[in-house]
Structures are given as structure tokens and as C-alpha cells.
């Protein structure tokens, strides 16, 4: 018994160490400690490193972006420097150049800095979704269905929607924000917290409202990832109506320089 206890204590401490590292860095506003090195600094830094070392670090950073993307959480430069780059911070620009290239050339993914002030990055796909993808049984995430519905309503309501409209609509779809849902768990948390952290949605307070009211808007990730034109196409299918009949939305979908236009081939 005592032996087991001792064993578990040491394990706990090693586990929680790993956890707390992550937690601390995410909370503190740690980017202050990092200043972008100058070109000459980078040059000097590279001279001290072997190419194998630089390759190794590049690989680690690529993996870091892939790991963070498992849950679609944006990456902050401060965390990247602290957890992965560490002693290589002086060659940061060179590593990032290689990482961007490797994500692009190998995976067909684009690294986008969505917040140039706080230096926050996300990955989006450079390849267009394929028509008639062959593997029917490939796993789908029902949460993406829910997100899709919310983004559609916001878009159709011209960019901003009071939260009540969303809850109202979802209730009709048998999803009650006040109840635990079989697939989505805590619906309200998923929508106002998880989707917001992933930058799919913005959930903002409407000024001068009493009682307090919030509205939803598209987040930066949605702007980059989601095609308004294709949403409108789906709306047309659903309502058995021409997409053009929503004149204004049609104009929005085809004028804003969003994801559809950003899709260039990744071949260089």
C-alpha cells in the first residue's frame, strides 16, 4: 500500500509538471520576452548550428503546429518560443520560413498569422475540398455540422446575429443550450467557448443592452476557411431556391476576398 502510494506520488508530480508548464504559458502574456532577431543575428545564430540541428528544430515546430491543430487551437508565438524553440529563438525567422515551406510543400497547408499584434497562427487547407471524395466512411465530426448551421445563419443574417436567434434556431433542431446534448455535451460552452477559442466564432456583448445581450459573428478562422458562396449554394438546395435570389448575400459571397479567392495551387 505505502509502496503504491509513493509510486503514485512521483508519477503525479511528473505528470502535473507537464500540465502546469502548458497552463502557465497560456495564461501569462509572455510575448514581451521575445523580440524578433535581426537578420544579422539570425545569420550569426545559423553559423553556430549544424543543418541537422536546424532540420530537427524545424520538424519539431511542424509537429507542434500539427498537434495544436488536433483541437484547432491557434498557436501563440510566445508559447511556440517557450515550449519548442527554446534556445533556437535567435534563429526564429529562419525556422519559421522552413516550417511554412514544409507545411505548404508536404502537407498542402497554409500557416496564417491571424493576429499580427499578438502573433497568433492557425493552419488552413490550401487544397479545395474534392468533389466526390472516394472514402465514404471517413470519420466526420458532428460538431462541424453544428458550427456549419451557426455560421450559415450568421452569414444569411448579413454578418451579425443576436444570440437568441441562434438559440431559437437550434432549439428547433433539438439542440437546447440549457441541456446536455448527447453528441455536443455542454452546448452553450461548445458554442460560446470552444468555437470562439478556435476562432470560428466571435461572441461579443452588444453595447447598452439591459439585460446584457450578445451577438455572434464569424471569427477569423471562419473567414479564412469557410466559403460563403458554397454556404449559399447549400441554402439554395435546402430552400429549393436559386442562390441568386438572396441578392445581398449573393453579393457578399462573391465580392469579399475570402477563402474562395485565396485558394491558389500550392505548386510553385
Amino acid at each position, binding site marked *: 500500500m505505502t509502496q503504491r502510494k509513493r509510486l503514485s506520488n512521483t508519477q503525479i508530480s511528473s505528470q502535473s509538471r507537464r500540465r502546469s508548464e502548458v497552463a502557465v504559458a497560456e495564461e501569462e502574456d509572455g510575448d514581451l520576452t521575445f523580440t524578433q532577431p535581426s537578420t544579422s543575428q539570425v545569420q550569426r545564430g545559423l553559423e553556430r548550428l549544424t543543418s541537422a540541428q536546424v532540420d530537427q528544430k524545424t520538424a519539431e515546430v511542424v509537429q507542434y503546429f500539427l*498537434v495544436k491543430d488536433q483541437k484547432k487551437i491557434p498557436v501563440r508565438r510566445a508559447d511556440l518560443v517557450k515550449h519548442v524553440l527554446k534556445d533556437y529563438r535567435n534563429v526564429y525567422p529562419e525556422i519559421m520560413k522552413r516550417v511554412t515551406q514544409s507545411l505548404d510543400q508536404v502537407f498542402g497547408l497554409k500557416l496564417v498569422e491571424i493576429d499580427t499584434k499578438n502573433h497568433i497562427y492557425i493552419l488552413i487547407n490550401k487544397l479545395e475540398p474534392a468533389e466526390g471524395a472516394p472514402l465514404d466512411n471517413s470519420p466526420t465530426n458532428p460538431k462541424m455540422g453544428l458550427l456549419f448551421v451557426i455560421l450559415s445563419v450568421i452569414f444569411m443574417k448579413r454578418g451579425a446575429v443576436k444570440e437568441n436567434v441562434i438559440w431559437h434556431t437550434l432549439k428547433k433542431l433539438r439542440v437546447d443550450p440549457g441541456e446536455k446534448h448527447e453528441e455536443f455535451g455542454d452546448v452553450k460552452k461548445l458554442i460560446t467557448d470552444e468555437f470562439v477559442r478556435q476562432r470560428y466564432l466571435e461572441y461579443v456583448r452588444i453595447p447598452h443592452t439591459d439585460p446584457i445581450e450578445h451577438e455572434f459573428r464569424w471569427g477569423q478562422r471562419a473567414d479564412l476557411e469557410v466559403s460563403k458562396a458554397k454556404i449559399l449554394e447549400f441554402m439554395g438546395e435546402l430552400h429549393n431556391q436559386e442562390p441568386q435570389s438572396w441578392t445581398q448575400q449573393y453579393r457578399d459571397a462573391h465580392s469579399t476576398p475570402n477563402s474562395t479567392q485565396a485558394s491558389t495551387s500550392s505548386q510553385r
Partner: protein
Amino acid sequence: MSQQMGDSHRRFLQNMMANGIVDEQDAKTLYQHCCQTHNTQCILDKLDDFIGTINSKLQPMFMQIRKGMSEDSGHQYYALVNMAETDVTRMSSDYTDTELELFRKTMDLIVSSENGKASSTDILNTADTLSTKKLKKSETEHLLNRLVHDKWLNEKRGEYTLSTRCIIEMEPYIRTMYQDQVKVCHICHNIAFQCQICENPTCGIKIHHPCVARYFKGRTEPQCPACDDFWPHEIPEPQRKGKKTELIYMYLHVWVHS
């Protein structure tokens, strides 16, 4: 080998990321689809070269598309695997530390068992011995379902086995960590969990069921390929059970420990 990657390669890789594992037939269909989408030439029997090109670019990232056999059907599969354990790879967020500990202990059970299986009862008991945090029975059951859903474990009638995806990715790990316990198939030389064992106590070699089926096909007097003793097991037939029977079996979660 120094072939450059194109969009067809990248699309193939992205599909591998989304699926984790595909069988050979699906891999070929996928290969064709990717080539068609990006108007590139597709030579069906050059699938392994196509994947080789991807792998040459993936290897520096400690990743690989690796081929392996299903112990169950004997079919070939391709899985996208991670090859290294680093501070970064341990940041993976699919499972919590506690959940991973339970998975590791489940693997311990499976590898150390006679038949390459662990009953859900034994796994549930293991959940009481976790060092980080105890898992409730329902939490453990939920986790096991997730592990099956994510294709890391297989479940049949309440017994868990390592999935093809798991074996392909974890093979080097299992060989290193369980060197005293793990046995390889005498025919294909891969590690063997679901297999038949020679009953000669001085021999005791293992052969995967599909390898047995292939090796002894058409022989009336099957003999152990190592010791020439009579091979006393039923030689499995290549064809599969009917859909309906299989369905009923799947749901009869009854097993008897003797």
C-alpha cells in the same frame, strides 16, 4: 525517390491524416481519385512508389505511411504513423494522461496474455490501479469506446485486441518494450497476437490465422513448419462469415472465462 511532391501527393497525405488507416483497396481508389483531381498520371501498380515519394518528405518530420497486415483478415493496410517520441509529440491532446495510462495498461494486458486479448473486466479492474487518477467504471467504458472508435483497439464480444492501426504504428515500440513477451509469426515475421500456437512444448511457434490459412491451404496433413509435428488446430477458411451471423455475434457480449 527524389521525386517531387505534387498536389495529388498532398491530397493523398491529407486523406491519410483524416482516416488514419485505409486498406489496400481504398488506398488504390484514393490514389486514383487524387491523380484525377489534379490531372496527373496514375499507374495503379505504382502505388508504393507514389507513397514512397510522400514518405521521403515525411521522414524528416518523424512521420511515415507504413504498410502492414490485418491479423484478422490478412489484408494489407496503409497507416499514417508517428515515429518518434519527443517533448512535442507528448503534447498530443487526443487523450488525457490518465486515459493514456489506461491504454498503456491495456496494452500490457494484451501483450502478456496467452491469446492476445484483454477482457473488459480485466481492463475495468486495471482502471482502479491507475497512478494519476482513478477512472470510474462508466468513464473507462466510455474511454474504451473512444479507443475503438479512433481505431486503436478492436472489440469483439467484450474482449479487446490491438487494432491493425495500433499494431502498425506501435510495432517498433512493442518490440522494444515487451521484448521478453512478444512473439513473431513464423511465416510473416511480424509480431503476432491473434494466432495459432504449435502445441509441441519444445517448439511453440506462432502463426497468424490468415498466415495459417495461406500456408496450409490444400494440405491434408498439416505439419508445423518448424518442428514437423502435427498441426492440431482448425485451419481457418479464407472466406468470411455471413453478415447476419456476424451481427448477432457482435452483440452477444457473452464470454466465459474457463
